[in-house]
């Protein structure tokens, strides 16, 4: 062979994955050594950075689309791997989240009680997620997908002796298996009876729109359950908080995105054209998930659980955007489709950044105070200034406030909602604006939720000694958070850069892209046309900084700059009880009464002591999870009953067993007699 062998991008990516897996293997014998932790996490960070760069290179057109077939996996098929723009974009997400989490873990991992339950799985988990993104045939995809679930399960079970983890892990793995089955069926349809499991063959095969819709449904179940789409989300708020925080960051920030990758890959790329009527279900499901998720986040008193719920909200937002893209694409409106799709991808990127950041912050808090309960925190901004500042960045970003990145992507999404009148179908014309309203509601509630989380957790006065004696986290953790915070700010100020970067992926999926943003003045976003709508994160940022600092300077220069400290006034009734502050529960009360009572069946039970008694009066809040009560419990009950009934067959007499045999014989003979 004269043509010399050149390493393509995908080869490099696969090598990086192999290295990650090797790291995991290395951890099994050597993980106990103290030197192992920084080595493993450091190496993972580097490898993830490599993956990140590879993705960027492909998106920027520096490295061509590449593919590689390895002689493993399904024998007659081999395992196909490839790096096209879509994969590259998600490779960027995985690389970014993975690198940050690993860097974070160099410091955070020191506090891990049983490192041997984390170190072997962690790098392999990263590798598996990468493989999902790279896979180009059904079998490799599903193997990688399921291995990803399995390893994350092992990581969730790392703290297997803390109560609640067992149930979390069980529900998680069960839902993962359920999702995989749905994916199996979807791929079964895609492959057809001949069994062409290669993505290329699936893409090529003609398919009726009805069949495509069925596949879409199966994917919504399969990938949706992994991404946390309501009502398949119940495992998520259990499992994500249970894991070590750097793993939570990965699961919430990256793994849900990988799940969405599966959805996008199959629905937009493989399944073929869809009718418009397939999209409303997706849109409604996304909107409902968003509102339900953020409302639950608003009610949760556990810091990490609240973050997990907010992940559900963001997944809902993304799915809503994807549904819009489907609706537009089905009507041949490629430019709006591109807008919605870019919004989805952009939000995926953003959420990966700020949700990882927030979970890391939660991890620092957990280490510093040993507390996840918001009502046990408070005043951390004094004890952990850097963590608090970075958490603030994350909170502002996730609340979709300008000038940070969260707003940029939601703004794009609103723009695409505003294009809905051009849709021909009345049904969509009604649904889309309603969904837009729910989106706005979700955004507003998100702000409320994060004011609550940040205000109760970091501001005010410490509520426990643990919070009073918290100490700032180590520099690795802070560095990782700092990087992510920087990304949030930059992506908010220069959204055009990110959009141009992900344009190839958009083009590949919806056959259109946003106008090139790089040539716009002042980094302005111009999704459709200058006259229609524009937003310049850079200028807004500049204006705010200038005016705020300017006004501050003026005031201090010309008015007064004197300042004295005194006790809080509090309308003349200052109380030095830390519990007199508003807590997580009390902050949520207004919204709990307004929305929670309907959507979450929130009930307050107040027990008043009899007059004269000094016993405290108690208020207990009960929330109901409709999905849990409506779907899962009945299902479990049904299986239980059947199992109990079937179990009688274990306790028959031999004679009865014989009669079973005879019975089946006689019945088969009867079948024969009739069959003749």
């Amino acid at each position, binding site marked *: 062979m004269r043509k010399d062998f050149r390493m393509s991008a995908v080869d490099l990516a696969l090598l990086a994955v192999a290295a990650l897996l090797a790291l995991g293997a290395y951890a099994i014998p050597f993980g106990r050594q103290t030197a192992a932790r920084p080595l493993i996490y450091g190496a993972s960070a580097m490898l993830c950075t490599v993956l990140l760069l590879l993705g960027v290179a492909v998106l920027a057109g520096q490295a061509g689309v590449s593919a590689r077939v390895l002689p493993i996996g399904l024998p007659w098929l081999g395992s196909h791997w490839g790096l096209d723009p879509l994969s590259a974009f998600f490779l960027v997400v995985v690389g970014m989240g993975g690198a940050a989490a690993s860097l974070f873990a160099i410091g955070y991992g020191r506090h891990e009680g049983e490192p041997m339950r984390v170190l072997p799985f962690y790098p392999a988990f990263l590798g598996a997620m990468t493989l999902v993104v790279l896979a180009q045939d059904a079998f490799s995809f599903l193997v990688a997908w399921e291995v990803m679930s399995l390893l994350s399960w092992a990581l969730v079970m790392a703290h297997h002796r803390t109560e609640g983890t067992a149930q979390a892990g069980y529900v998680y793995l069960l839902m993962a298996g359920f999702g995989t089955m749905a994916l199996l069926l979807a791929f079964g349809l895609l492959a057809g009876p001949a069994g062409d499991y290669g993505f290329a063959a699936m893409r090529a095969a003609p398919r009726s729109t009805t069949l495509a819709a069925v596949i879409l449904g199966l994917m919504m179940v399969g990938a949706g359950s992994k991404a946390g789409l309501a009502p398949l989300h119940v495992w998520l708020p259990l499992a994500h908080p249970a894991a070590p925080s750097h793993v939570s960051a990965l699961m919430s920030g990256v793994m849900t995105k990988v799940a969405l990758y599966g959805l996008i890959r199959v629905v937009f790329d493989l399944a073929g054209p869809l009718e418009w009527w397939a999209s409303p279900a997706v849109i409604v499901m996304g909107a409902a998930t968003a509102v339900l998720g953020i409302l639950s986040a608003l009610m949760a008193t556990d810091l990490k659980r609240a973050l997990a719920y907010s992940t559900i909200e963001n997944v809902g937002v993304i799915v809503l955007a994807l549904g819009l893209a489907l609706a537009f694409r089905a009507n041949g409106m490629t430019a709006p489709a591109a807008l919605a799709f870019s919004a989805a991808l952009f939000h995926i990127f953003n959420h990966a950044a700020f949700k990882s950041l927030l979970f890391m912050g939660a991890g620092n808090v957990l280490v510093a105070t040993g507390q996840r309960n918001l009502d046990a925190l408070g005043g951390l901004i004094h004890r952990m200034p850097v963590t608090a500042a970075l958490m603030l960045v994350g909170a502002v970003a996730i609340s979709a406030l300008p000038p940070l990145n969260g707003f940029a992507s939601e703004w794009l999404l609103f723009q695409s909602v505003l294009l809905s009148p051009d849709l021909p179908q009345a049904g969509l014309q009604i649904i889309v604006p309603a969904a837009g309203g729910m989106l706005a509601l979700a955004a507003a509630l998100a702000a409320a939720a994060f004011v609550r989380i940040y205000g109760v957790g970091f501001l005010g006065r410490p509520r426990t000694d643990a919070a009073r004696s918290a100490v700032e986290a180590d520099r690795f953790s802070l560095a990782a958070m700092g990087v992510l915070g920087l990304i949030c700010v930059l992506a908010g100020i220069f959204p055009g850069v990110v959009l141009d970067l992900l344009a190839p992926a958009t083009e590949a999926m919806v056959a259109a892209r946003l106008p090139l943003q790089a040539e716009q003045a002042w980094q302005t976003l111009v999704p459709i046309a200058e006259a229609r709508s524009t937003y310049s994160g850079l200028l807004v940022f500049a204006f705010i900084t200038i005016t705020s600092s300017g006004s501050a300077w003026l005031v201090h220069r010309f008015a007064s700059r004197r300042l004295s400290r005194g006790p809080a006034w509090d309308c003349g009734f200052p109380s030095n009880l830390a519990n007199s502050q508003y807590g997580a529960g009390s902050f949520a009360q207004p919204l709990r009464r307004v929305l929670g009572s309907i959507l979450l069946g929130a009930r307050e039970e107040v027990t008043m002591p009899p007059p004269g008694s000094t016993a405290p009066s108690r208020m207990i809040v009960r929330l109901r999870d409709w999905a849990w009560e409506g779907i899962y419990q009945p299902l479990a009950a049904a299986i239980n009953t059947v199992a109990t009934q079937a179990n009688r067959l*274990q*306790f*028959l*007499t*031999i*004679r009865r067993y*014989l*009669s079973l*045999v*005879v019975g089946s*014989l*006689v019945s088969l*003979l*009867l079948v*024969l*007699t009739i069959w*003749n």
Partner: protein
Amino acid sequence: MDRIAFDIAHLLAGGLVLVSFMMIYQERLTALLNVFAMHAVVLALSVSWQAHIQHAPHLYVTAAIALVFKAMIIPGALHRIIRRMGIHREVETVVGVGLTMLAGMGLVAMSIVLMLRLTEAADTFAREDLAFALSVVLLGLLMMVTRRNAVSQVVGFMSLENGLILAATGAKGMPLVVEISVAFSVLIAFIVIGVFLFRIRERFDTIDLGALEEYRGENQ
């Protein structure tokens, strides 16, 4: 073959079915064992008749096995077991004898219908013979299912084996290997049952399976 030979074979095979029925309505173990001995004798007769008309001398061996083992040794052994262990003498049935009889009728009817309709191709005699054999097998099963205590179940099982032998001999020129295997299996079956009765007796005074079945794998 000539008419008379056919009729005799037919008679004997039918007789076997009849004896099976007799076994079903026995109420005392000893009587049951005697009837089973008769069952074996009839089988031996039919087999040897087959040997005669098929000019297959090796079938006489089978007949002999049937006669010696099933008609004499085993009933004797079971008699001794019953005596030694002082098993209460009556057969405990699950459903009334009448019902069992009806079920038996049904089974026989089914097997005959099945066979006669199935095997137009095979020669008439083999067909008749198979029909009877199938009925004997099914009746044996029925007996195992409707009897409570082990001896009668064992008897049912053996009558089932008899049915098999009837079928085997009915099939023309079936190699010796099969008969040997049948005998072999019966032999093994008895060794093992013997072993089991023995072991079981070490623990319980009765071989009534009911006693065994208190414990069924997992405590309920």
